[in-house]
């Protein structure tokens, strides 16, 4: 089986030992542990993980317990990139000096949207510029969920959070989501991709590509959060599918800066009638409830427009022609 080529089955995955174990204390319905578990299924051998402060860090390592069956380091909120740099540098030199026997030890950094879009972007950008060989996985639940649902640079337009509250005057977050994956592509790094846990095989394959590529790789994974999104705890994986089907979160890869759509999004590109309206996605989540009022309808339209614009831009980057009139 070749993971990077997608030649593996659910059985292959089931037979691989778990590196992220059960017993962690994430909330019911949280998609992030699923993301971590899937990424850790993509490893090719000995792997060291570093984790930014955030939901996954606090819920997986409450002393004296741990969910990690692989070496794991946490130091601070904004240090996923700089920790990965230090780990990779140490592995390189200690192997050269014969103090580490393993031929290859991979490095994976996990961070949430707060740790990536906001406080950790400098360390991430620096690590990528320096070309360290590691995979950075952003599990994006679109707000500071660990501290109680505060807005981040990854929170989408219109979402109500505890620091971008929907009130009689302000209709939730008034700014749009930062295009973080595009920012990473602009670093001219070897591998950038987006993934959603519903498309588990695509996610594992991309994680493996990121691990195998020489140099830095960035994987942006959508991770629905029932607590913060005010969504049904049984629907998180489905929501990650709906985000792809509405093109709110299209799936793509950029290999050495060359964009290409991944199959779930390519299907929509080839048959634009399959593109679902964003309303159906937004309706599933209490954080957007206030938008479904006559007063805020224009924000719903704006979200649709922005989604279409970004999607059409992506199609162009992938060498595809956007439809003359966007289906909405």
């Amino acid at each position: 089986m070749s993971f990077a080529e997608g030649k593996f089955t659910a059985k292959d995955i089931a037979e691989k030992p778990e590196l992220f174990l059960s017993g962690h204390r994430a909330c019911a319905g949280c998609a992030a542990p699923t993301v971590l578990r899937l990424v850790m299924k993509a490893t090719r051998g000995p792997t060291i993980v570093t984790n930014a402060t955030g939901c996954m860090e606090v819920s997986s390592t409450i002393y004296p317990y741990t969910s990690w069956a692989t070496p794991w380091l946490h130091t601070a909120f904004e240090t996923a990139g700089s920790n990965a740099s230090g780990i990779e540098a140490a592995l390189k030199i200690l192997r050269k000096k014969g103090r580490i026997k393993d031929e290859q030890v991979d490095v994976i950094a996990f961070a949430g949207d707060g740790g990536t879009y906001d406080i950790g972007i400098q360390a991430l950008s620096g690590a990528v510029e320096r070309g360290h060989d590691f995979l950075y996985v952003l599990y994006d639940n679109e707000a500071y969920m660990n501290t109680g649902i505060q807005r981040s640079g990854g929170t989408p337009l219109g979402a109500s959070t505890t620091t971008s509250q929907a009130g009689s005057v302000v209709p939730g977050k008034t700014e749009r989501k930062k295009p973080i994956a595009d920012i990473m592509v602009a670093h001219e790094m070897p591998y950038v991709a987006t993934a959603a846990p519903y498309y588990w095989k695509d996610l594992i394959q991309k994680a493996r590509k990121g691990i195998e590529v020489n140099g830095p790789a960035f994987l942006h994974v959508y991770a629905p959060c029932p607590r913060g999104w005010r969504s049904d705890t049984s629907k998180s994986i489905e929501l990650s599918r709906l985000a792809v089907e509405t093109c709110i979160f299209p799936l793509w890869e950029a290999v050495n800066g060359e964009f290409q759509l991944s199959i779930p999004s390519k299907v929509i590109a080839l048959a634009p009638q399959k593109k679902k309206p964003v309303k159906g996605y937004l309706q599933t989540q209490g954080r957007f409830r206030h938008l479904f009022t006559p007063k805020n309808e224009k924000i719903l339209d704006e979200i649709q427009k922005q989604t279409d614009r970004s999607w059409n831009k992506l199609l162009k980057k992938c060498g595809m022609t956007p439809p003359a009139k966007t289906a909405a």
Partner: protein
Amino acid sequence: MKSAVKQEVHGLNGDEAVALAVKQADVDVVAAYPITPQTIIVEKFSEYVASGEVNTEYVCTESEHSAMAACLAASAVGARTFTATASAGMALMHEMLFVTSGCRAPVVMAVANRALSAPLNIHGDHSDSMAERDSGWIQMYAENAQEVYDSMLQAFRIAEHLDVQLPVMVGLDGFTLSHTLENVQVMLDDVVSRFVGTRQLPNVVTHEGKTVPYKLDPANPMTMGPVALQNYYFEFKRQQEEAMQNALRIIQQIHDEYAELTGRRYGDGLLEQYQLDDAEIAIVCAGSTAGTVKTVIDDLRAGGIKAGLLRIRTFRPFPAIQIAKSLEKAKAVAVMDKSISFGGNGGALFHETRHALYDAHTRPYMVNYVYGLGGRDVSPSQIRGIYEDLRKIMQTKHVDELVKYVGLRE
């Protein structure tokens, strides 16, 4: 004392002395960010890298925060690590200093001590490292470039000692030491290699009952830097304090071993006494100012005045008992602080020295002199003035003003 090994005299400034020590200590990972007056260290090290003189991964990070995070992470993998900083750079590291000591990572750092903004000032004072005195780092302050070199080599041994396992910072006064050329006696590479050795790792017992080295190792997965709440956090902190107390002994032990080798000694490694045995009036200070104070003492002694000096070489752990012992005969003591604790009545060195003497059998009169902020020069005549003040205090048995400022425009 005689040197047991061959040494060579090199013309080096303090920064170059740091870089040379780091090169000779065969550091595995250097992660650093440039800042005046530390820049010569990172430039010189880059020169070593470029000419293939070191076997080191050199990571030029995009900030000091990342430099410390990278050092900590590399240290967790088992690497010997080094960084250097000053002033704002150290302030930016603040968060990571605590994480590094809390993770018990024996990172070594040189600090070209410099004033903190605002106003912006690039010159030497101790504001930067004194502000980090509770960060869980061992702190040493050097008097000259020779001691910078010597302390750096000792620092790796102290930090990595199994009874310590704490990060160490070595302070060298910005410009006064960092940029001033001095003759420095240097050991040969192989002698340094033998002295410093390869980093040893403490053993820990895993959940499976296996005894393994404490590092990030895929063969023995370990979770480092977890969450520890009300039920465990406190014990972690208490252990750090115990390691600090162990360091008092280890610093002296390694200093002795180094002295045997090189013939160079700085008191007992914690404190250096100069003409202190019978001194009635004494100055306490840290760093390069001690050199000026010693010159003044020589003059005063020639005139029959019993003046002495206690130089704090190791500020963390604070050798309180040894300080009290050193000053037991002094009648009046002036503590010179090259930093200020706003609203705290003087500087940290004063507070802690005074605290150390509280339980002394006979307590001397004490007075604090804040001096040299932002690199303002302190002259021999000013030091002489301090000793004159002390004589007056001794005679009148009265301290007019607890905190004074040296060379200040008022």
